[in-house]
């Protein structure tokens, strides 16, 4: 089920909530991302996306999930194979946002010390998306997995 080593996170139990950060791991165009489970409302198969006129960067369009209009965000480079992106991670809040994901890997609990802030200096060397949507990351093997900051998503 997972392409990422999950052993870096301790098994999640209810008692862990206060100490560990539960994140949802997902994959967009071969890049791994994480988002705090607390910020999400669930994962659904993404319905057909209606294009929006003059969308801001990263906005793929609009879709209706359970009767709620959801603005679909795509973290991957645009103009990529849209057909393979199937899952939609629903973000909590009045913004009515959803994050497109090619695959949702599962939930891991991270020890707080594993979560590191993204420094502005470092982010320049990283992928573009790093600085724009993440304020922290954790290391999975050699890879850095950005943890999406929902507030950054609101800013568009």
């Amino acid at each position, binding site marked *: 089920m997972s392409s990422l080593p999950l052993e870096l996170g301790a098994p999640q139990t209810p008692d862990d909530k206060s100490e560990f950060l539960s994140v949802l791991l997902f994959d967009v165009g071969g890049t791994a991302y994480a988002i705090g489970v607390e910020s999400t409302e*669930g994962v659904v198969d993404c*319905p*057909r996306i*209606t*294009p*929006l*006129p*003059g*969308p*801001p960067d990263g906005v793929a369009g*609009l*879709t*209706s999930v*359970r*009767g*709620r*209009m*959801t*603005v679909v965000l795509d973290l991957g480079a645009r103009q990529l194979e849209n057909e393979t992106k199937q899952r939609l991670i629903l973000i909590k*809040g*009045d*913004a*009515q*946002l959803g994050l497109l994901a090619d695959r949702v890997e599962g939930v891991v609990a991270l020890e707080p010390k594993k979560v590191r802030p993204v420094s502005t200096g470092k982010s320049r060397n990283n992928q573009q998306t790093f600085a724009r949507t993440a304020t922290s990351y954790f290391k999975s093997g050699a890879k850095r997995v950005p943890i999406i900051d929902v507030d950054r998503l*609101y800013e*568009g």
Partner: protein
Amino acid sequence: MIDDKALLSEYLSESEELLESLLADLDALASTPGGASPDTNRVNRAFRAVHSLKGLSGMMGQPEVQSLAHDFEDILDDLRLGLFPLNERTSAALQEAGAGLAALVGGAARGTTSEEDFDRLRELLAAVSIKSRERSKRDEGGLDSLNLSTRERALITEYEQHRVNENVRAGRSFYSIIVSFELAKLDSQYRSLTAKLEGSGEVITTLPEKTTETNLVGFKLVFAAGLKEGEVKQLVEQFGGRVSRLERSTWRRAGDALRAAGRRVPGLGPSTRNAGGDLTAVLPPSFAQESLQPLSPSVRVDMSRIDQLSGLAHELSIGVEQLTSMAEKYLTAANLGARERSDLRFSARRMKREFLELEERVVELRMVSLAQTFTRAARLAGRLARELGKSVSVEVLGRETHLDKVIVDRVADSIYHVLRNAVDHGLEPPDERRLAGKNARGQIKLEARLEGIRAVISITDDGRGIDAADVRRRATEAGLIRPDEELSDEETLRLIMRPGLSTADEVSSVSGRGVGLDAVERTIHALGGEVRILSQIGKSTTFELAVPTTLVMISAFIVRASGWQYAINVAQIIELLYLSPQEILGRDGKRNVQWRGTTIPLVELGYLLGLGGARVLHRNGGQPAANESIKVPVLITCAADRNVAVAVEQFDEQREIVVKSLGSVGRSLKGVVGAVDLEGGDVALVLDIPGLLLLRSMRL
């Protein structure tokens, strides 16, 4: 008595409307020419109004008003069936009863109406009812004993006649009291006079009386009392009243004889009478105080008028939005001083803020509380539980939550449906509950709370809960899911809303679970809401109906462009036309058409949306063929005071749509004001064409 203020005001405003319609019909019926049969429509409408009032009062726990309305209904039913004729007397009696009922409703709901007031009206209704049953055999004996002119007798109502008879039977004496009051003091003097008389007898009626003085209004009171003439004179001395005995001599003796025998009957209250044109409705004090004031301080307005207003406010705020963004744009370009610049910016911003507030206020006008729906729902649950041999107590929270009236109306059935399910399937029978160590009496909690821009209505029962494993098994059997499909508990529970899935082994007549829950979900989705289900086996089940608090409903025209469907507010469309390709002049990016004698620019919707332009116009491989019969659908709109033609692929239809919000991020998108769900699961954007034109920086 109704304690809940919001509920009270709703009840009052609703009953006021019914009473007003009733009184209007009774008044109209009263002017039916003698001998003619009453207007059936009016009689029926009056009947329905009283019937509705009965239902409403019953529902609101107003048994007195309910029973009075019931009596009234019987009378109107008799009238409807032609069991008694409508004449001056009967129609006046009906008017009187109507006025009496109207006067009581407010007080009854506030708990300030006394038993006597109810009794008086009951008596009145009984009198009318007796008369209506006796129809031709009217007993005018009592009235015959009085010295009244034919004209005066014609003004005596059936009820008053009944009161005369009652007083004759009680052995009282009848007096005529003639007084004249100044117009200015009429009301107060009349009131104090009758109050004084009521203390020792009964004012049966007030009749007009001629006076020679032009600034005075004269009238004659017919007064019945167990008093001597001298005593009556003393009573009315301060009012300058002239008193005389009314009975003809033979009757007077009989009355005196009865009184001598010591027979007395406690007096009943007064009656009401509109004494011709000289006086406005002279009502007895207890009625007059209430009935002259409106029952509630609210005004009932047709929803469509609020819709027009909110549509206009919406358009205005969009217009202002464009204006302010244009102002910002030209501010930098214009040759203005810093002061002018900041003034203009300030004014533009204030205007924008105020228009937004105007729109919000108008939207608030459509908001009503859930109180009535919740009260009905709670009552329904209790009744249903009794029918099923269960016992339930319903806790209601958040009844003050305000939602758009359309949402409240549409969500009501879903609430009832879920509630029926909770009572029928959620709650176990008392024995089973006892075995499970629960209170035999089931608990249902009906709660509304605000969650951001949504209201969440939750219905929780402390019953057996829903077994997700069981749902999963059934869903697999029914082929709704694959056996290996990964689902969270919530997703599994959600399956019970799919058509054809029933978790109840016995489907009862009350609510076959599964049947209808899909309808609930559809309804809530159509409103832009969602249904959530939470359950703990053996403990509880919660259905949460999350709905938006406000709705924007518009009449929209659905068009197609670049393969997608779009909705456009019809208010933004000036005209729809089909143009033949040769009518479209110019080339890409600079096309125009002749419309109403001028040349106006033409753009393609697909281009405006950034979905590739000129597809419509290039259907024939670039050059429009002259012989081509294909017509291009074009709508004419107006942006920045200029008319613009917008070409689309296809006109679909015009319909009423509920515009759903795109959320706080989507709101900042230009050219799109919302979206609407389409049948196939797709969404159609609700476009703001002028906004789109600005977005594309069209030089108009």
